[in-house]
Structure formats: C-alpha cells, structure tokens
C-alpha cells in the first residue's frame, strides 16, 4: 500500500530554490487560494450551468428532444468542464499548476459531498433539537417523544424485528441454496441462480406490486380470491385472511418481500466464496470419514465466515433503511410502521420537521457501530494477509 507517487518529482523531492519575495511557493497563500478556487469553480459552474438551462424546465417542450438534450448536457457538460479547467491550470506557471491541479481533480467530489452529505448531516442534527416548524429550540423533546410515544416505539420495535429476521433469512436461504446448487450440474446451477437473483433488478415499489397479487384479499362473498395465498387458503377449506392487516403478523409478510429481494445478493456472494474453498480440504475431510454435513460445518463454514459477516451486515444496513416496501404496501398503517418510513411520513404528511429529523439521526447513529465492527474486521484481515 506504500507506493511512492511517481509523477510529482518536482514537488517535494526536487531541490528547493530560494523563492524571491512575492513569488508564489507551493504552500504560499496564493497557491492555496488557487487550490481552493480551482476546487470550487468547477462544481459551481456545473450547478449554474445545469440550473440556468431553462429548456430542461420547459414543460411544453417535446419530451424526447428534452431527454436527449438532458443526457447530452448532463454527460457532455461534466467532461467538458473538467477539460476546460485542466486547460486553464496549464496556463499557470508549471510549478504552481502542479500544486493546484490535484485540487481541480478532487475538488468537485469534495464540494458535492460537502453539500449533499456533510452539510445535511449537521443541519438535520440541528433540526432534530427544534420544534416541528424549526422555529424554536426544544432540547431533547423530539428524542424523548420517539422513545416514549407508542407510534414511534412500535416503529422502533418493528425495525428491530426487520433487522434481526431479514438478514438471517436472506443469509441462511442464500447459503443453503448456494451450497446445494454447487453440487448440481453447471447448467442447472446457472439457471436456478438466475431465478433467485432476478428480483435484485426489481425496484422495491415494483416488488410491492408483485406481492399485491400474492397477498391479495377479498372478504367472502366479494368474488374469487385473486391473491394466490388466499386462493390456497380457500382451496384447503380455510377462511381467506387479510394478510396485510392482521397484526402483528403483517410485519412478517412485509419482511418476506425484502427477503425475496435480498436472497439473490447473499446467494451470489456466498456462492463465489464457497467455490473459493479449496477442494483438497473438503476431500481430506471426506477421506477422514466426515459426512457432507460435517465437511460443510468444519471446513466450508469456517473458511467463508468473513464473507458471511460482510453479507449479513450489508443486508442488515439495507434492511434498517427500508422505506419503499412499507410506504407503498401499507403506508405504515396497522402497526407496520418502521423508522425509515415513519421519518418520511412525519416529514411530508405531518410536516413535523423536528421528529422527522430525530428519526433520521436515529437511523444514522444506529449504523455506526456496525460499520466500526466491519472496518475493524477488515483491518485485522488486511493485517494478517
């Protein structure tokens, strides 16, 4: 990881000539001003250019032309601006240019990240200590509310249920499937894997619609069941069930949708990890008389444990932030609210900025420990390589 940068010979290692007074040096104020300017000019230009382009907002314009222009402007504009910036830096004295150029490369990314992630994170935290219209300070009131009022307590309880059950289900099913399919022919393997993997390409909103025809419910006497689960219930002589309104099980039925979406992801990654387990080790275990299950437990499982942790935490974080499925299927009614969806409902439906922001901060703080654990594991792994 300690590769010496090769292209900056003159910058640090070169003999430092005594610089006459007034001439910009690498660390001089003038160079820093140029660096900051070059980092900011491009993103500001980009934003001004995009938003000044009124044509993109003209509602009467032809849609297809608008799309083509949008794509050309969006795509070509960015490349063009980097090129232009680079040309301008080339006009500077070589030494100064060399000191300034990296900031023109990194600057736009940093500026955009500052505006879209750093500033909002700070601002949302501030808003969470203010009242619903962000007019006066209320201390920890919003936080006290989200931990004491039943609506939010249920949301937190449900979210915990989601993050416990969904990742486990996705990993267990994914791992079982990957292990079994590994023993079948290549053709069967690739076809069945595609079937499991396919939902990954479907949006959460699309998945909600897909499952509308699984969980569909009509009270008796209001026509045939068009949801397959209730059709089965009726066929085996049971009463149809309103799956999405029967508390607390409706939460489980919503979780199934996310498991359906995420298992493909866990299966593909675990499958490639399983294929990385040396066949010699498995062979040795079998020769020692281990059954397939024992070989799996004592050879495969330990070798892929770090991949399992990665998959598990990735699915967990996705699950923790799940919003669309609940928002579209139940709107959080009937005791199905979760934190991420309640946050949006609070903000847009109830116009309560303070509580919405407090829920967002909760979403943020809760993932930090998981990421720290992940980073530590990653570091330990890198160290032992």
């Amino acid at each position, binding site marked *: 990881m300690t590769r010496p*940068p*090769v*292209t*900056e010979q003159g910058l640090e290692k070169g003999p430092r000539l005594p610089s006459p007074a007034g001439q910009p040096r690498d660390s001089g104020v003038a160079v820093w001003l140029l660096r900051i300017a070059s980092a900011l000019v491009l993103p500001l230009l980009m934003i001004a250019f*995009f*938003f000044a382009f009124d044509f993109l907002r003209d*509602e009467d314009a032809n*849609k297809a032309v608008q799309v083509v222009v*949008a794509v050309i402007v*969006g*795509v070509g504009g960015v490349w063009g601006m980097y*090129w232009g910036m680079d040309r301008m830096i080339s006009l500077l004295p070589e030494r100064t240019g060399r000191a300034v150029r*990296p*900031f023109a*490369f990194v600057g736009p*990314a940093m500026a*955009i*990240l500052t505006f*879209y*992630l*750093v500033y909002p*994170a700070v601002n949302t935290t501030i808003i969470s200590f203010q009242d619903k219209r962000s007019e006066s300070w209320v201390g920890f009131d919003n936080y006290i509310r989200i931990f004491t009022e039943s609506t939010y307590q249920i949301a937190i309880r449900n979210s915990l249920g989601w993050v416990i059950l969904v990742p486990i289900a996705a990993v267990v*099913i994914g791992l079982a499937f990957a292990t*079994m399919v590994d023993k079948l022919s290549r053709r069967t393997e690739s076809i*069945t894997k595609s*079937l499991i*993997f396919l939902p990954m*390409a*479907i*949006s959460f*909103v*699309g998945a*909600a*619609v*897909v499952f509308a*025809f699984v969980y569909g419910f009509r009270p008796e006497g209001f*026509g*045939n069941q068009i949801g*397959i689960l209730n059709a089965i219930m009726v066929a085996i002589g049971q009463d149809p069930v309103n799956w999405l309104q029967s508390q607390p099980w409706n939460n489980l039925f919503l979780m199934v949708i996310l498991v359906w979406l995420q*298992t493909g992801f866990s299966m593909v990654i675990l499958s*490639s990890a399983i294929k990385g387990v040396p066949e010699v080790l498995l062979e040795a275990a*079998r020769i*020692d*008389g281990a059954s397939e299950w*024992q070989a799996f437990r004592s050879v495969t499982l330990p070798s892929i444990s770090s991949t399992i942790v*990665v998959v598990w935490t*990735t699915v967990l974080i996705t699950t923790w*932030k799940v*919003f*669309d499925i609940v928002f*579209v299927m139940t709107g959080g009614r009937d005791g199905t609210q979760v934190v*991420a969806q309640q*946050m*949006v409902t609070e*903000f847009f439906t109830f116009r309560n*900025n303070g509580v919405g922001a407090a829920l*967002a901060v909760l*979403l*943020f703080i809760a993932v930090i420990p998981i*990421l720290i654990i992940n980073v530590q594991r990653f570091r330990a792994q890198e160290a032992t390589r």
Partner: protein
Amino acid sequence: MTTTHTPPDVPTKKSESRFTKLPIYLTVGLIATLWTIPSLGLFINSFRDPKAIRKEGWWTVLGSIFDSATWTLENYRVVLDQGFSNAFANTVAVSIPAVVIPITIAAFAAYAFAWMKFPGRNLLFVIVVGLMVVPLQMALIPILRVYTSLGVTGTYPAVWLAHAGFGLPLAVYLLRNYMGSLPSSIIESATIDGADHFKIFSKLIVPLSVPVLASFAIFQFLWVWNDYLVALVFLGIEPEVRVLTVELADLAGRGEGALNLLPAAAFVTMIVPLAVFFALQRFFVRGLTAGSVKG
C-alpha cells in the same frame, strides 16, 4: 473426527449418482419455484383481459393457455397512454446523467487520490469513505429546503446532483482501490513520454479501469432507475415530471379501480433493469463479488 473409519474410495462430487442428489434437486427446485411464482403470476396477469384479471387469479389461465381470447396487449396500451410513456422518458432523463455524472466526478477524484500527491490527501480520502455511513434520510430535509429556496425542485439537474452526491462515496472508494492497484510502471513511462495528468487519466487510466467503471455503472443505474425516495422528494409527484416508480406507486394507491393495470405497469417499470441485468449479469456479479469476497 469421531466418525467411523471409511475406506478411501468414498463417493466424491463427481461419482455421486443423480439418484443420491434427488433431495438436493427437489429442494433447489422448490426454492427456485417459490422465488419465481410471484413475478411469473404478475407477468401472466399483465397479458390478460382486464375483466378476467379482476375476476379470477392468474393461475386459472393454465386451463386456457392456448386460447387466443385469454391474451391481450390492452393493459399495456392503456398504461402507456396513461402517463407511463412520459414517466419512462423522465426516468431515462434522470438515470443516464445520474450514472455518468458521479462516475466522472469520482474517477477524477479517485485518480488524484491514487496517483497525485497533495496536502491532506489521506485525510480527505478517509472523510469520503466515512461518508458512506450517512443515510440518505439525513439529507432529505436540508437539501429540500435549499432546493425550494432556489426554486429548483422538480428539475432534472436537481435529481442528477442529488444522486451524484449519494453515490459518490462508494464510487470514489471502489475506483480509487482499483486505480491504485494498477502498476505504477505504466504511469511512470507515460510521464517520461511527456504526458500530463489529464492525458494519463483519459488515455491510460480510464481505459484500464473499464471493468470497475462498468460494474459501478450497473450498480448505480439499477439504484437510480429503481429509486423511489429521491425522485419522490426532489422531483415530486407532478404528472409532468414524475418517474416510473412514482407513477407506479401512484397507480398502486388507486386501489381496486386500477388493479388490472398494475401488472402491465409494473413490467413497464422493470423491463429496462431486467434487460440490463441479464445482458450484463457477469459484469454485475463480478463487481459484487470483487467488493466483498476477500481471499
């Protein structure tokens, strides 16, 4: 091992017969079927007569599968007339720049982090990676306020840049790791030949980074195309500007009245990501596994 000793000619993967694998075939088949039924049902429904969709479940077509009266494109026609073609155009206009802009910005930054020397390099890179923790929800309220005061909500660039911001940390991280692993000798020799950074970047590093650029592009594309929250908040629900997911959620919210249109509408929203996914599955899988499987 505490099990009884068996002779060394135990059956291995290759010598096992189909018969002993029967339970595996059955379980795999069962899971694959369970996973396919929901989307298969939707697919069948999308081609059925509107009245039949409301009247009976999709599995009833199995009796009249060869009857031409069973199948119709009517639902697709209605759906496309009712704003889905407009929403489709909006989604394209949102997605392509929202993929290319963050990749371009991230590639320049990743190149600088990997191959240029400047004060604060490591600190800035750590900050970028750390920002992966910030959930999208944190950004909604403040950004919407700024957008509203500037009067830019409901414009494409507003959404492009928001997606760029949310996608950048991962993009910079992945691209920097990949670019940093390229051999330094090629850059050295290009420098000796007199190439400047812009040339090395555009003529050498970008072409060499195509695999990682492609797998991030697929990620970001699927994410943006399927996104509901960002589009809902920053682009809004006005029929003129709304994207496919917003249009579909709106249709789903209309209840029984729109029931027959839902399957066709859902497939209109899915067709592009499914095509991309199947065409580029290998790239996609390679990208997924490269990031998370450590040898």
